[in-house]
């Protein structure tokens, strides 16, 4: 409608000036976003094309770091471990979270608030402290787990140093810490299901299992899916647990992508190579969440 583009621009400019307080109010985020996110991400890409070590000389190497990464057995092992971890741990945790949420959603459960609080409690423990506690619990000689197992007649195992068990220890720790958190989110989803829907189904003769399968589960699926995405992103950023519990060992069986990134960047100070690892992680995350979105869209159709 406006014929004069100059006038349009002037109007816009006037609107911007009129709202300068609002821009001032939201500016801290954008300043920090530029300084602590955009700048590092761009700088990181530049670093990934060099072989800078510590504060030393910068040498341009092009895509060499990325080419090396794909032939780096430790990096491939880290991707394998991280993916295996995600595939094993997330279904266990989310299934458990859904079951616990379904049970605790019933008002008839005695002491349901107590159960809910205690299940949630692990999230408040600092990750590092939780990992330290687990390192003691899972210790072969002085740990609680082997104490319980031996009382029950099983033989003790070396949970942290056995190559076949170490990743399971990490699975145990992460599941312990996050199940209650996911349960609380799913519980909130359950409480948003309209009661009338369940009632109508009951009047139409749907049994409890049918209601669960055809009403409750489909209705909380978006919430569970949200948890799934969060867990997936979390799984690919796994760091503190293997860093403290197993230091990536035994035989790199618990080496994760971020742990390898940390070791490369902050123990060997190969900033260039570490940045290439960081960028690969972003690409992996994009692919994984993209695939999930697509898969869930496909399921709906």
């Amino acid at each position, binding site marked *: 409608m406006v014929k004069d583009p100059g006038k349009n621009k002037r109007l816009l400019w006037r609107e911007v000036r009129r709202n300068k307080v*609002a821009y001032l109010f939201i500016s801290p985020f954008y300043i920090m976003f530029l300084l602590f996110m955009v700048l590092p991400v761009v700088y990181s890409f530049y670093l990934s094309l060099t072989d800078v070590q510590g504060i030393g000389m910068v040498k341009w190497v092009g895509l060499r770091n990325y080419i090396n990464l794909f032939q780096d057995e430790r990096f491939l092992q880290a991707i394998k471990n991280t993916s295996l971890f995600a595939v094993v741990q997330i279904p266990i945790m989310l299934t458990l979270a859904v079951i616990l949420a379904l049970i605790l959603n*019933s008002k008839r459960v005695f002491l349901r608030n107590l159960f809910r609080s205690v299940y949630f409690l692990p999230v408040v423990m600092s990750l590092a402290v939780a990992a330290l*506690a687990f390192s*003691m619990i899972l210790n072969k000689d002085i740990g609680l787990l082997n104490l319980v197992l031996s009382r029950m007649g099983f033989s003790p195992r070396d949970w942290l140093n056995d190559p076949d068990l170490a990743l399971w220890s990490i699975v145990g720790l992460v599941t312990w810490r996050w199940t209650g958190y996911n349960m609380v989110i799913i519980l909130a989803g359950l409480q948003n299901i309209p009661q009338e829907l369940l009632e109508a189904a009951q009047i139409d003769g749907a049994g409890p299992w049918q209601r669960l399968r055809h009403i409750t589960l489909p209705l909380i699926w978006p919430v569970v899916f949200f948890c799934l995405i969060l867990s997936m992103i979390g799984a690919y950023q796994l760091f503190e647990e293997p860093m403290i519990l197993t230091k990536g060992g035994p035989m790199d069986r618990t080496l994760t992508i971020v742990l390898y990134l940390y070791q490369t960047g902050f123990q060997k100070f190969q900033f260039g190579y570490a940045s290439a690892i960081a960028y690969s992680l972003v690409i992996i995350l994009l692919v994984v969440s993209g695939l999930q979105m697509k898969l869930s869209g496909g399921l709906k159709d």
Partner: protein
Amino acid sequence: MRPRSSHIRELSLPMSVAAQIATYAFLIFFLILAAAPFYWTLVSSFRSMGEIFSRPTFLPSRFTLENYVSLSGKTLFWRWTFNSFFVAIGYTLLGLFFCSLGGFGFAKYTFPFRDILFWILLGSMMIPYHVTIVPLFSVFSKLGLVNTYWSLIVPGSANAFGIFFMRQYISGIPTDLMDAARIDGCSDFVIYHRIILPIIKPGIGALAIFLFLGSWNNFLSPLIFMRTSEMFTLPVGLAALFGQWKVEYGQIMAGSVFTVLPVVVVFLSLQRQFIEGLTVGSLKG
């Protein structure tokens, strides 16, 4: 949560006695699993060093405070505690200010580019923090910020989750209140300070917990940015004790109790805000 009238019958699975027993056994089993690490940490902190390294038992043969004494005297524990508190409080206060102000800006003003700016904010949540640590470290070391409190307090304090959360909260406040104040000649900042802040107190509480805990429990940032042991925070300090040649389990467990106890106490007394705070951004989504 939607209100439910009392006459609506509870719609859950009708259960036999056997099924009920099985359900409670299931619940209690996981209750024990969830609580066990807390128990083991607490109990181990009262064991003597000799007992920790002998055959384990469920209860200590005698309670001793020697781990606490050696933690207090032989390590930098008090310094780490101070660092943790200082950083977490600074980060929380700064974060509360930036997030409530930003949330107010997005909720109550209509301005050009608002939607694009908001999408950028939401999109920034998807960038993994880990991608930024290497370049952030080299930028900070050039600016001389490595090994300072600044490196832990400032980045992330204008938190995207927090601004989003505050925006949802403030959107619910009627605009007439603001308009009336504006007619009375109040400036925008006075409206924020005198009208908005008092109304959103519960949300501020939840956000404070979210921010404080995020900083208190943070491990990666202090691990990278704090280069000398006097500057460590509690989690990093305790992990450093763990990395020593001879692992001082007793000291570590005593320190863990100190790290976890305040949080658990606050959690048990402020559960509603706590759960809301820790699930900031997820429940509203």
